[in-house]
């Protein structure tokens, strides 16, 4: 018996013991309460917006009042979209895995046979030993029927087949593991092109898409293939669970390390009031539960759960239908354009045939749209053609998350730019074939990336107040509070009911803290910059993090300076609006809380605290070394 090559040690090995979250049980009562509160919140919110436009604008300061009320209105629309997304869960029962083709397709005279399943592992430049983990776990996938072939293929877009000795040899690893290997001579279409290449050479009726780091659980097929008995179901998405998110740190230990006995005492006091407090848990906000179990799962109600790439299971027939229809449409459109341009009469039949030939050859069959956000774009097209999708609520694979802010920003920027690009090219609001619910769900995904338009105004409002002492509203009166506070309370409780027992703090923080990267994405799409497909690195980036957090640092600094200035004016008895100061200070504290997460994430490094001996910690040395690493200041390094 051949011995398997040993697995390389990686940083994530220490997280192997972690278990995924379990989906939230569905409660009809809770959902009814959510729907009721959502309607009440929307009604009060609409009243608030109406009151804001009609009665509250400070007419002496319209330059400030109008942008703020526009921002609030746009933000209110995003709440409406969010409620539509959350409206109701709709889980399907897990069915027995399928065995024969006739269970998932109408045979229409064809002989029946066992269904064929392929596992496609897409890779580009990741460590081949990392891919080996994914292959090994794929090989462990169980399926109850021996006559159902489950084939594993590595789709290598890095041409690491041994031709270039300077590169790792992916093909060799695939051969050692006894799985298939395909590579192509170009990177056309990036991941979508890579998947197409895989589909061209394989024959699975169902196929699983995995990324290089997406390690499947052995249940991924038994839990999901049964859904395909529904013959209009095109794909099943399973949650992408990141098992390497940052470890929480016990605050008392951290304070002890930072400030010795003084810190320990402070920690003890905090614990006395709030109980045990942990910090730095999932510092990059990668924990996916809120998105997959909250948002995407509830999109099943509208048949609008989109594909997120890795961890999805697809019906080949669905994507091939999309490819064929798109091809036919492309050919017809181009041919019409060409023939109109040249004029039919002036050319011979032979020449027209030549044009046809060229058009047929120029167009391609593309099962997954060639786009930076190929997964969401393809999903939208398939939904528009009447196909169904399903978000399976249970985690069936584990993945690696960005381990530094530079990687994180690159990944999120791609998501943002890709989604915004779809808005400009193929806006779901106007796409033929989508239902109203689907239109709203897809548009809400895109709309959320326009958030900087209102976020920037919200973020800068307190700063503008601090330095101009002008109020955008007539007064922060009872009228303001009687609409605003109930809306916020009802909204908060409604969201609480959806996320029952699950915190969304971190994702809320990042929603606001991402304003800068989303702004840059909007600009790049508006000026027509081509959206690039960057593979998310699986190792830490060495790039400087300063550009990503500089706007955050400036804003927080302005808030601090503004506060000092306003406190000075209050003590001098020269401040025109104390209530305005108090309101804006609450708002600015909320802003600081949200923006600071990204700064902390930029400074975050995995720590190996000596828990037994926390007082030995040298805070100054740690600060210097971190500064040197982050900003690459060689002068500090030398010390």
């Amino acid at each position, binding site marked *: 018996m051949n011995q398997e090559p040993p697995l390389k040690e990686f940083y994530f090995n220490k997280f192997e013991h972690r278990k995924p979250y379990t989906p939230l049980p569905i409660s009809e009562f809770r959902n009814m309460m959510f729907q009721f509160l959502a309607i009440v919140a929307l009604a009060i919110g609409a009243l608030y917006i109406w009151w804001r436009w009609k009665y509250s604008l400070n007419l002496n300061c319209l330059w400030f009042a109008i942008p703020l009320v526009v921002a609030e209105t746009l933000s209110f629309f995003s709440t409406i979209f969010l409620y539509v997304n959350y409206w109701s869960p709709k889980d399907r029962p897990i069915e027995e895995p399928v065995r024969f083709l006739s269970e998932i*397709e109408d045979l229409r005279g064809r002989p029946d046979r066992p269904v064929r399943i392929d596992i496609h592992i897409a890779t580009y430049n990741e460590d081949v030993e990392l891919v080996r983990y994914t292959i090994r776990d794929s090989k462990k996938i169980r399926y109850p029927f021996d006559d159902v072939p489950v084939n594993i293929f590595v789709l290598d877009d890095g041409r690491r087949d041994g031709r270039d000795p300077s590169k790792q040899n992916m093909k060799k690893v695939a051969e050692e593991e006894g799985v298939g*290997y*395909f590579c192509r001579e170009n990177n056309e279409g990036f991941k979508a092109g890579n998947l197409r290449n895989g589909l061209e050479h394989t024959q699975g009726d169902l196929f699983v898409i995995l990324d290089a780091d997406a390690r499947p659980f052995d249940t991924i097929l038994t839990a999901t293939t049964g859904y395909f008995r529904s013959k209009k179901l095109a794909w099943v998405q399973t949650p992408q669970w990141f098992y390497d998110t940052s470890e929480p740190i016990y605050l008392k230990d951290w304070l002890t390390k930072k400030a010795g006995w003084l810190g320990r005492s402070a920690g003890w006091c905090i614990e006395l009031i709030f109980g045990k407090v942990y910090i730095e848990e999932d510092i990059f906000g990668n924990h996916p539960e809120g998105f997959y179990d909250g948002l995407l799962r509830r999109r099943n109600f509208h048949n609008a759960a989109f594909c997120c790439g890795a961890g999805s299971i697809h019906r080949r027939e669905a994507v091939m239908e999309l490819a064929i229809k798109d091809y036919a449409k492309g050919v017809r459109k181009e041919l019409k354009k060409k023939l109109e341009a040249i004029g039919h009469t002036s050319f011979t039949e032979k020449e027209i045939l030549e044009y046809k030939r060229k058009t047929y050859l120029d167009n391609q069959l593309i099962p997954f749209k060639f786009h930076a956000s190929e997964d969401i774009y393809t999903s939208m097209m398939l939904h528009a053609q009447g196909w169904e999708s399903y978000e399976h609520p249970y985690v069936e694979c584990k993945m690696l998350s960005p381990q530094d802010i530079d990687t994180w920003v690159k990944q999120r920027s791609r998501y943002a730019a890709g989604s915004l690009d779809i808005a400009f090219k193929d806006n779901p609001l106007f796409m033929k074939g989508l239902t109203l619910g689907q239109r709203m769900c897809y548009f809400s995904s895109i709309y959320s990336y326009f958030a900087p338009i209102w976020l920037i105004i919200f973020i800068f409002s307190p700063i503008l107040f601090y330095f101009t002492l002008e109020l955008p509203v007539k007064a922060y009166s009872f009228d303001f509070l009687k609409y605003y506070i109930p809306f916020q309370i009802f909204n908060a409780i409604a969201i609480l009911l959806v996320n029952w027992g699950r915190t969304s703090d971190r994702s809320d923080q990042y929603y606001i803290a991402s304003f800068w990267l989303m702004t840059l994405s909007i600009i790049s799409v508006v000026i027509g910059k081509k959206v690039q497909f960057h593979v998310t690195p699986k190792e830490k980036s060495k790039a400087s993090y300063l550009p990503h957090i500089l706007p955050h640092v400036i804003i927080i600094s302005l808030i601090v300076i503004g506060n000092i200035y306003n406190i000075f004016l209050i003590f001098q008895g020269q401040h025109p609006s104390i209530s305005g100061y108090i309101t804006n200070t609450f708002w600015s504290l909320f802003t600081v809380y949200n923006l600071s997460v990204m700064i902390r994430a930029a400074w975050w490094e995995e720590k190996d605290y000596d828990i037994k001996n926390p007082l030995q910690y040298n805070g100054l040395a740690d600060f210097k070394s971190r500064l040197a690493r982050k900003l690459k200041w060689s002068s500090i390094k030398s010390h």
Partner: protein
Amino acid sequence: MKITRSKDLFSKSEAFPEHSGRLYERVHYVDLKEVCFLTNSDIARLIDKVKYNLSSGIETRVINVKPEVMDQLKQLELDSIINFE
């Protein structure tokens, strides 16, 4: 194990047995006499074949197409793209 794109792709189709069709005077005739249903993957391979032939200067004609298959191809709006007889 590496496979590159080749003309053999077409032969993988379940609907078209290996080496189906006949080449005559730079026209490849694909006979669908026995075929009463094409999967989308089969159709994709047919398009692939048409394209491959075209790139080699060969025309593809699909013959003996049953009405139900023709309906299928019409539904996908391929009737003006693939030559039928």
